[in-house]
């Protein structure tokens, strides 16, 4: 490439890349031909395929739906959720499972903040294999398993991916909190042992989150921390569209007394 000795040649070279299409990339403006009934193209907000080993972060308005699709059956979406207006408020995994008396989030479950509010609801889930217990892989665990876990290597770890995604919103090491892993699951045995459900699964399983607050979401797509296989992860598709703020009669909102009070606390935050 020694022909790029002057800026004009470098500019031509750079511009010649325009229009390149790869498997994992954002589509701008967003375009999708599989939106649910009632969602128009003008409501589409985000369309991106997150690379295997990649990450993304995004602001979501209240009412926004975020659909994640495990395109090829081997994605692992490690998710952080923050209150965008006050990111010291964030997903609290312990409260999420404890308050709802349920270890296994699925359709109808809420993702709760440390301030007793609902950050997001799981509006639809056809996967059913998720993990609130094991958290993100880290540099040390990836180094043990793959020989390397650095962002700059071939086996990036989920924690460092989440750190980068959070840093894009001004957040740092103190802000990266316990995550939920979507699409890779666990079940807890009577003796406390963790049994993983790592697939690979059928292609195309999906989950739809409904933002109940103004959110920052950060997603890393790296192999599950307990995945014993050689490096194995496939791309993750994220699609977001505008939607209405949850109404008083919403069946998720009213399903249990704990969930109703979480919505009451969130609605109180926006009573201004």
């Amino acid at each position: 490439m020694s022909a790029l000795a002057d800026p004009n040649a470098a500019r031509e070279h750079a511009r010649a890349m325009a229009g390149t299409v790869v498997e994992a990339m954002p589509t701008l403006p967003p375009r999708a031909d599989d939106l649910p009934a009632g969602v128009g193209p003008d409501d589409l907000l985000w369309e991106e395929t997150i690379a295997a080993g990649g990450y993304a972060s995004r602001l979501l308005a209240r009412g926004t739906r975020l659909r994640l699709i495990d395109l090829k059956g081997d994605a692992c979406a490690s998710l952080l959720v923050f209150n965008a207006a006050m990111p010291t408020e964030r997903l609290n995994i312990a409260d999420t499972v404890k308050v709802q008396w349920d270890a296994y989030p699925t359709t109808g479950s809420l993702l709760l903040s440390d301030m007793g509010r609902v950050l997001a609801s799981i509006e639809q889930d056809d996967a059913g294999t998720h993990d609130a217990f094991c958290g993100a892989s880290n540099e040390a665990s990836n180094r043990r398993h793959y020989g390397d876990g650095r962002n700059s290597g071939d086996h990036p770890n989920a924690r460092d991916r989440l750190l980068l995604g959070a840093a894009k919103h001004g957040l740092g090491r103190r802000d990266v909190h316990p995550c939920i892993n979507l699409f890779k699951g666990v079940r807890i045995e009577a003796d406390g042992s963790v049994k993983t459900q790592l697939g690979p699964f059928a292609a195309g399983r999906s989950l739809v989150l409904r933002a109940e607050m103004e959110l920052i979401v950060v997603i890393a797509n790296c192999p599950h921390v307990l995945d014993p296989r050689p490096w194995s992860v496939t791309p993750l598709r994220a699609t977001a569209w505008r939607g209405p703020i949850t109404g008083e009669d919403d069946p998720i909102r009213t399903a249990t007394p704990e969930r109703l009070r979480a919505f009451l606390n969130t609605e109180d935050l926006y009573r201004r």
Partner: protein
Amino acid sequence: MTQDLHVAGLPGPVIHDEIVPARAPWLHRVKAGQTLRVVDLEGNQAVDFLLYTTADDAERYSAQDTIAAQANIFLRTGSVLRSNEGRPMMTITATSVDYHDTIGGACSCESNSLRYGHHTKAQHSCVDNFLEANLRDGRGKRDMVSNVNFFMNVPVEPDGALGIVDGISAPGLTVDLRAEMDVTVVVSNCPQINNPCNGFNPTPVRMIVAA
């Protein structure tokens, strides 16, 4: 002189010995190699427990890293308490209780409003204890992370039902923790009165550090 059974079997001389009153916070630095013994003086008193690396407190206890590394949610003798960067912070070298919890989190005024109702808003909570202790040490709400609950029992049923149930501890039972690095220990002697984690009666606990 009567023998103090609570110090029996410690690996070295006692260098710190303190009673934490019911409902109170506690902060103490433990150096690598020292052992912290927590004594459940009156039985079934949840001791909510955070750890920070003293030299760099952005590194701190992580329940998820701890669970993943041992592929088990219960903390028993031999369990290693790991940081958010996967490093060993403390090891449970002995405990006379079958297992301890690390999935149940810490009670707060806010989560109490969900679990029990808004009438509990004025009650004291572990998060307020953690905040009070951390604020004096230069940390704030961003530093509130996942915690251990010694002497607390949170089973997960086959259908996924999870909850704080009657304790499996008893008066005088203990847990010993050997520091694998210099750590800052932050404790809330849990004030919760709405579930069985303290037998509906918060009581004092004893903290003994041996060199």
